[in-house]
Structure formats: structure tokens, C-alpha cells
């Protein structure tokens, strides 16, 4: 059997990365937790995990020179999987704790959920729990996924892309919101596949197949 693909898990001090690493191993990938830009660029694929605050994440990425490494990975079309904050930092700007510029790979903003739903009823924020994602689009990762699946979410902010063509997954919390985005070399989700039991495994298996296909 061929060696499993190496996946750089970008470590920028955003909490525990072991569950992400273990979940990738379960999908027959070879995770390498790293904060070295060179290793990020050299891997077969990259996972940008993340919990915590947007501004902190951007500052830490910049300080370690990882923002440029990520732009290089994305520029080369090397498979990139963003998780939660790893989706949000791709956008132009976030409202969290004042305006903070993101990586600007995708056009749009990251905004807090509104206080009320579309019918005017109170919306509970953060969204914590399992929500059904509806996938739609022609990204190669979607070929391996059911059209609808439940994933675990924990967040108060969500991306609002200016160009809806990058949206490949939506879910509903007081109205439809962006749960997954994709471009040719990029797939990013607002939820946590590493915490989403069988559905999470399906998603990471699809990531493995995509990485294999592009190797």
C-alpha cells in the first residue's frame, strides 16, 4: 500500500489539536502538527483548525509567518481544509471584538448571528449542538458525501460571503447560514468534523479521497 498522504495541521496556539490529528489518522491520513511554514507548504494537504477568537488567530498566524504559507498553499491549489475558525479567517473581515482583517482569500465578512430569527423570535447564541447541513455543488469532496448530514457546531459568528458561488453547504439557525464553502483547492466548514461521530468521519474520508486524487 502507498504511504498515506501527509497532512499539516497548522498549530498557531488555538487549543488542542489532538482530536483533529486522531480523526485524520482514523481516515488513513498522516497528520503532522506543525507551526513551521516550510512544513505547511510541503505537505500533501493542509488542515487549519481553530477555536477561539478571530483577531487572536490572525495575529498568531501572522507572527509565525503562517499567513503567507497558507496563501502559498492556496495559490498552488494544494488541498486545504478549514475547520470552524479555519473557515472564518479566509474572509476579508470579521466583526468579532471590533473589525479585524482576515486572510482575504474569499470575499465577504464574518458577522455575529442576529438576536432574533426570521420570524422575530429570540435566537439563542452561541449555536451549540448538532445541525443538519445541506450540501450542494460540484466540488470533488461532495461526491463522497450524503446530500444532508448532521454535524456538531459551536460558534457565535458565521461567514457571510459576498459571492454566494463559494457556498457549498447551508444550515439553518434563525435563517439559513453558510456551513461550508469551497473553491477548486479549498474546502472549509463551520462545524467540527472531528467531533461529529460518523458524519465527521464521512467528511474526513472524503477529504482523504480528494487529497489522494490531487497528489
Amino acid at each position, binding site marked *: 500500500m502507498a504511504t498515506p498522504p501527509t497532512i499539516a495541521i497548522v498549530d498557531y496556539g488555538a*487549543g*488542542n489539536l*489532538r*482530536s483533529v490529528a*486522531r*480523526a485524520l489518522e*482514523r481516515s488513513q491520513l498522516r497528520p503532522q502538527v506543525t507551526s513551521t511554514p516550510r512544513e505547511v507548504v510541503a505537505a500533501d494537504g493542509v488542515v487549519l483548525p481553530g*477555536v*477561539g*477568537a478571530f483577531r487572536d488567530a490572525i495575529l498568531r498566524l501572522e507572527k509565525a509567518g503562517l499567513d503567507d504559507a497558507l496563501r502559498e498553499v492556496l495559490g498552488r491549489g494544494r488541498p486545504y481544509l478549514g475547520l470552524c475558525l479555519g473557515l472564518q479567517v479566509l474572509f476579508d473581515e470579521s466583526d468579532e471584538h471590533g473589525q479585524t482583517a482576515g486572510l482575504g482569500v474569499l470575499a465577504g465578512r464574518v458577522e455575529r448571528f442576529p*438576536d432574533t430569527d426570521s420570524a422575530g423570535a*429570540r*435566537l*439563542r*447564541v*452561541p*449555536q*451549540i*449542538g*448538532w*445541525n*443538519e447541513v445541506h450540501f450542494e455543488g460540484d466540488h470533488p469532496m461532495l461526491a463522497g458525501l450524503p446530500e444532508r448530514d*448532521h454535524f*456538531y*457546531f*459551536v*460558534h*457565535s459568528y458565521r461567514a457571510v460571503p459576498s459571492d454566494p458561488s463559494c457556498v457549498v453547504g447551508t*444550515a*439553518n*439557525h434563525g435563517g439559513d447560514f453558510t456551513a461550508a464553502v469551497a473553491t477548486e483547492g479549498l474546502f472549509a466548514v463551520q462545524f*467540527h468534523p*472531528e*467531533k*461529529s*461521530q*460518523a458524519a*465527521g*468521519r464521512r467528511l474526513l474520508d472524503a477529504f482523504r479521497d480528494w487529497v489522494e486524487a490531487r497528489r
Partner: protein
Amino acid sequence: MLTKRIIPCLDVNAGRVVKGVRYVDHVDAGDPVEVAQHYDAQEADEIIFLDITASSDERRILLDVVTRTAETVFMPLTVGGGVRSLDDVRDLLNAGADKVSIMTAAVENPDLVAEAAIRIGSANLVVAIDARRVDGDAAEPRFEVYTHGGRRPTGIDAVEWAGKMAEAGAGEILLTSMDRDGTKSGYDLELLRATAARVSIPVIASGGGGSAADLAAALSEGPEGGHAQAALAASIFHFGEVSVGEVKRDLLSRGIAVRPPSPEAAGALIS
């Protein structure tokens, strides 16, 4: 839409599950990691470890348990009990907890929650409240916050406290009725409803869940329901009376939106 969560809770002392957990097969009922794997297979939506250890030496054992659990189960893990400082919160998150619950320390140092919310983010921060009914003639029932495992009254109004903690930056309230805890006579729906009305963050119902009907009542958004976003239960699952999947099927038939159990979900676990 966001579904309602069913959360088994384990009391852990010095790294071992203390309340009776009775299982068949290969489950070591005293090992929190094995029990967590068991609930993962049943597709519980989340699991809570409540550490009742007093000594700081034994904290390291808890951290090890959290690490081993996070490495073997792919589900959300909340840890609470004895969390005194921002460092405690960080240690647990670094060990692999997804959310950390604070109780007594929040009452003793109300700034802790605000500080933790800024440093760590609200979404991972749970404030636990033990509440007891206050005797009185008032038309509206009143509830008081207790600390130190429900032994020490504080004079603080529980519903107001929940509001204060939400404003300070808590991401979720874990609300236990001390009157109902261990009775299996149903959750305190008035307490839940009043709290859910006071805060805009999720509320986890705890204390008194003895059947699927009790969980349904706590999670119901109807005028008589508890309006909670999640229900914590221990005894009904630990004693193998019913599996998480069975409870979920029952809840779905009662019109409660839970994540449907998959065909692969481990079904029975009867002792």
C-alpha cells in the same frame, strides 16, 4: 435546524466513574474513557464529566482521563467540577475538553467568567448553577443558588444569576434542580422555563430526568415545557434501562427535534 441534545453525565472521582454504571459486554463501568466510548457508539450528542475530586493531586488524573477520552471518542466533551481559575479552564481545554463548566468559583469570583470569556471565548464556557426552591407564599416560585455541591446556600436568586452570567459572557447555562436531583421525578420545568426566558444562551436541563417523557417535557418549547436546549441524564442511561437511541426515537415520536439515531447506532446495552 439546530436539534436538541441528549447528554449523559458521568460523576468522576480520582479518575473513576463513581455512580453505579451497569453495562454488559466489554465495558469497564468504572473507566470514564470506556463509558464515553460506549455513549459515543450510542450517538449521544455530547458527554459531561463532572469531577467530584477534592484534592489537587487527583486533578492530574482527571486531565489524563480527559486526554485519553478526547483521543478515542469523536464527540463533544464537557468537563466540570472543581474548576477554580483561568488556568484550570485552560488546562482542561488543552487536555482536550471542548467546553469547561464553572460553578462555585463563578459565585466566589464573578470576574472569572468575564475574564475567561474574553481570553477563551464564550462558546466554550459553561456556567453551572445548582438551584433549590425557596419556600414562600409568592405566586411565582423563587429559586436560590447553592454552591459546594449543593451544601451551601448563597442567598442569590438563581434565575437572576443565570442572567448575570450570560451577560458576563457565559456561553451556556447548566441548570440543576437540587430538589429533583436523583429523584427521577422529572425536571423542574418552572425553573427551566424562567431561566430560559431570562437568558438568550442555551440552557441544559439537569436534575430529575427519569424517563423519555421527562426529557421531552424539559426540551419542549410549548407553554408547559422547560424550553431547554439540551437535557442531561445519568441514571436512566447508566443502569442500562434504555439506550440513547431508544430515548431519541421516543422523543422524535413526541415531536421533539433531536438528531435522529443512525441505523448503525449501537442499540441495546441492557444489564
